[in-house]
Each structure stands twice: as structure tokens, then as C-alpha cells.
């Protein structure tokens, strides 16, 4: 809880959470924000931004703004869905490997290192190509199943050091079952690492979904930012001067990524006070005096 109250005071976190909240609200209330349908022709091809079409129209005469706010739903759903899966697998395997040790650790560690040296995007390209026209939920599952290795590595090494602490030893002495120790003694102490892993995985999933769709591996009928990029690129939007078609999803992706990254950097700063900028020594002294030195 201390982590959260400190996050509230962090400037980066405030900015990040605000932007993210706006994007989530826009995605939820998309039907109220636009009179158009995202999949219907509502204007002439490649109309420039105007009062009628705030961000212009695509080559097929779709309203760009409408597609953008509906597309936010897909990016958020894939990002958080895949992020949750990646974090869940990574955290569970990492804690088990770090706490159990022995053969279990060696097996998990071996597979983790194996997955880490096989380049991620090329692997995803091959899988998505064989799946063929992958829809957003399918992309989310593929991402979840292939991208957990980094989380395992980080969680495992942290678990290794926590395992030696007194409270874990005493729980063992009391004969608590190992799942209980892992869930209630170790996991709560990993919360900042799990948080960073989660937000990082969401960023990764948002970026990778858009990239796969941009490269032509997505389902072209989806309304998402990646498919918008793909369509705009195919319609040579830049060379015919229809920059709004291409730059709108670019801006949206950058904004979502930046908001998440700001939150992540804030968690990192709160959890690892040495990284903090701005009068570091002064803040340390204040924290120690206020009895907040231990995190």
C-alpha cells in the first residue's frame, strides 16, 4: 500500500495515469463520441481533416477519428490481456524456480534461457504467418505464450535473495506448505517487480500487436491501430499527401506507449530510490527521518 501512496506523489506517475485514464475513457465511450460507424463509408476517399471529419477520412472513406477511438479498445484489450498472461506465467514460474531450486529450477531456467535467445519478433512472425490473418485475441494468446521468459528471469533472481530472509525461514520452521510461503511470504515482496513486469509487458504487447498487423499478419477486417497503419501504408497515404491517415494511429500508439512507460519509470523510482532524480540526497534524508527508508 505504501507503494501506491508514494506513486500518487510521483509526477511521472500522475501524468502517465492521467493520459492512460483518458484513453480508457475514450475507448469505453467511443459510441458517444462519434456519430459515425468505424466500418462504414461516411465520406469521400482521403478527405483532409475538417469540422465534419476531425481527422479526415481514409482511402475507403472511413472516418479516421471514429476508427481511432474504436481502435483504442483493441489496443487496450490486447495490451492488458496479453500483459496479464505474460506476467502471470512469468511470476508463477519465476517464484517456483527461485524458491524450489534443484531440478525444477534447472528445467525452468533452461527453457527460460532458451526462449530468451530465440529472437522474439521473427518467432512471432512465423507463428502468426502459419495461423493466418490472426485476430486480436489470437495475437494476444500468441504473445502471452511466447514472451514470458524475461519475467521469469527477473522474478527468479529476486526470489533467490528473498528465500534467505528470516521471515521465510521462520515460516518454514512453522511447517507452512510451500505454496503458502510462495503466495503469502514471497509474492507480496515482489510486488514492485511484478508491477514493472506487467506494465512493461503491456507496452510490449501493444507495440507488437500493432507491428504484426502493420506487417500484414493481422485480420484486415479488425478496427485497430495496427490495421489502420497497414491500410494507410497500402494506400500509399504519405505519397498521396494523406498524412492524417497514417499519423493519427502513430500519434495514438505513441501516446499510449508513453503513458505506460511513465508509470513504469515511476514504479521503478519508488521501488529503487537510488534511481530518483532531483535532490536525491535531500530526499533520502527526508525519507529516513520520516521513517520511510525501508520499502
Amino acid at each position, binding site marked *: 500500500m505504501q507503494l501506491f501512496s508514494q506513486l500518487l506523489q510521483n509526477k511521472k506517475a500522475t501524468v502517465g495515469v492521467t493520459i492512460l485514464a483518458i484513453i480508457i475513457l475514450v475507448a469505453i465511450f467511443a459510441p458517444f463520441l462519434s456519430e459515425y460507424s468505424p466500418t462504414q463509408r461516411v465520406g469521400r476517399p482521403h478527405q483532409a481533416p475538417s469540422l465534419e471529419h476531425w481527422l479526415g477520412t481514409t482511402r475507403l472513406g472511413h472516418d479516421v477519428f471514429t476508427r481511432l477511438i474504436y481502435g483504442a479498445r483493441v489496443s487496450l484489450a490486447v495490451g492488458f490481456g496479453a500483459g496479464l498472461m505474460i506476467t502471470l506465467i512469468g511470476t508463477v514460474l519465476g517464484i517456483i524456480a527461485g524458491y524450489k531450486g534443484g531440478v525444477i529450477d534447472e528445467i525452468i531456467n533452461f527453457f527460460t534461457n532458451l526462449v530468451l535467445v530465440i*529472437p522474439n*519478433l521473427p518467432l512471432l512472425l512465423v507463428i502468426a504467418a502459419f495461423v493466418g490473418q490472426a485476430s486480436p485475441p489470437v495475437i494476444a494468446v500468441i504473445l502471452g505464450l511466447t514472451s514470458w521468459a524475461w519475467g521469469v528471469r527477473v522474478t527468479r533472481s529476486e526470489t533467490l535473495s528473498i528465500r534467505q530472509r528470516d521471515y521465510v525461514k521462520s515460516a518454514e520452521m512453522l511447517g507452512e506448505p510451500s505454496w503458502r510461503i510462495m503466495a503469502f511470504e514471497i509474492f507480496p515482496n515482489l510486488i514492485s517487480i511484478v508491477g514493472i513486469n506487467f506494465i512493461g509487458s503491456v507496452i510490449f504487447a501493444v507495440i507488437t500487436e500493432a*507491428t504484426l498487423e502493420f506487417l500484414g499478419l493481422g485480420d484486415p477486417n479488425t478496427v485497430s491501430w495496427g490495421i489502420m497503419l497497414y491500410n494507410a501504408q497500402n494506400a500509399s497515404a504519405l505519397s498521396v499527401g494523406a498524412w492524417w491517415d497514417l499519423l493519427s494511429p502513430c500519434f495514438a500508439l505513441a501516446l499510449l506507449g508513453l503513458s505506460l512507460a511513465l508509470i513504469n519509470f515511476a514504479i521503478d523510482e519508488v521501488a529503487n530510490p537510488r534511481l530518483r532524480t532531483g535532490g536525491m540526497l535531500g530526499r533520502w534524508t527526508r525519507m529516513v527521518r520520516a521513517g520511510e527508508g525501508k520499502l
Partner: protein
Amino acid sequence: MAFLLRRVVFYLAAFIAAATINFFLPRLMPGDPVQIMFAGAGSNLSMENLNALKLTFGFIDAPIGQQYLAYLQSVFTGDLGRSVKYFPLPVTELLARALVWTVGLVGSATIVSFILGTLLGVMAAWRRGTLFDSVVSLLSIFSSSVPAVVISLTMLFVFGYSLGWFPNGYAADPMLDPAFGWSYISSVIHHGALPMFTMVIVLTGGFAVTMRNNMINLLGDDYIVMGRAKGLSENHVMLWYAARNALLPTVSALAISIGTILGGSLVTEVVFNYPGLGNMLYQAILARDYPVIQGQLLIMTAAMLVSNFVVDLSYVLLDPRLKKA
């Protein structure tokens, strides 16, 4: 020595794992993948070409175990089958042709951004809390969270289309004869500059923040105080006491990120229509040219493993403790 040997065995296992994924994926597809590809490619392949295609995926009249061994054998002898789109051409030849451009682009961008990022990180850590540090932090937040495709498209829009400073595609002027004359070389540099600069923007922030955090974590250590106490200049302590020790984890971060770097280059090449692996792969995806898509996974994995091995070697050189282990 034992350390390096263990690594080589591990890398071999990793490469076999990638090949295994390639072997089983077509077999997990519903229906006969070769038939689907045959229909999907819309090409006029003859029956004997169909057989050549089947061989590419290791479909021979034998039990699956034998198929697998035959597939591994062909992969390890450098035979990745034939492309569907450019039919008689072997995948290896197609990829090798494209790889030259990618290596040039990725290599130069990685070197520039690693040096630049490391220096920025060192100085940001040394002057932490100042405006300079904040700018570096912002830069790294930016490049770690904004997709490479977004940065590439924006750069192309601004410097390619709007300002017209750089060409919008190809690795060189297609009118020029690719001989080693100055006009050809300058054309290559002019065409490569924007994609390279884009990749530098994508990569520098990550290196900077890794280095900055590594530095900060050891700034309180005794040997830093010792360096200062000896009366050495600030710059000397910064570079030869702090940065030198913070460099080790940064180098290993570089090895792990080679895969991401190659992934980023795929996207940049597609956007800039640059004739490297990325663009070749994009064409393959559009044509559902599966052998090429599979071939790039093996090439990329090999590149990743080799660069990891190089880092292992440099570790042995940089960290004397490992020589004994």
C-alpha cells in the same frame, strides 16, 4: 574454457529448438500445408516443384522421427528449401542477398547508438538530478515505449516527404550502376542515412537508461570514494572507475537486445522500402511464402546466438574472474 564450452552446447540446443518450431508448425496446421500454400501462392508450380516444396518442410515418405532428422540435417547443411514466390531460387540465396544490406544498416546503427547511449547514460548518472539527466530520462522513456514503426513512419514523413532531404526508398539510386565508384557509394550513404538515423533514435534511449542505472547503483561504492580521495580528476573517476565497471552489465544487455534490434530493423526496412531482410520478409508475408518466413527465423536465431557468443568472449576478456571459472 569450460564456461565457453557450456555456452556453445547451449547455443546449439537453442538453434535446434528454433528448427524444431519450424518443423512442427506446418504439421500443426489443419489440412496439408503444402497444398494450401500451393493454392494460396496462386502460382503455376508443376508437380515436381510441389515435391521440392514438400522436401523444404521435411515431408518425406517416412515416420515422423525420420522426417525430423532429415529436416535437421538439411538445415544444418545450410539447405533451407526453396522460395514459393521466386520458385527455383533457394531460400538461403535470397536471404543472403538481403542480409548484406541489413548487416550494414543494423551494424552501423547499433555501433553508433551503443556508443552514444552509453556516453549519455554515464553523464546522466554523474550529473543526476540536473536538466541533462531529465532530458536523457525523457529520451529513454520515449524510445522504450514508442513503437519503431511509429518512429520510422514519422521520420519518413518529416525528413523524406515534407522536407525532402532524403530519398523515400531503396538502398541506392536504381539508375546507378552498382560499381564501386564514388557516386554509387555516396548514393548508398544518402539512402541509408535516414533509416540508420531512425534506428539510432529507436535504440539509443535503451542503452542510455541501462548504463545510467548501472552507474547509479555503484556510485556509492568504496572504490569511487577511493578514486576521489586519491585526488584524481572528476572525469577520470567517472570514466575509469565508475563507467568501466558499469559497462559489463550494459554489454550483456546489448547481447540480449540483439533480437529486439533485428526486429526493429525489420520494421524500419519495410517503412523505408530498404532492400534488407525486413523488406524481403514483408514481401514473403504478403505472398505467404512460408519457406522464406521460416528461413528468416533460423538466420535471425543464428545471428542472435553468434552475437551472444561474442559477448561471452568479451566477458571473459573484461571480467578476469571468469577466466578461472
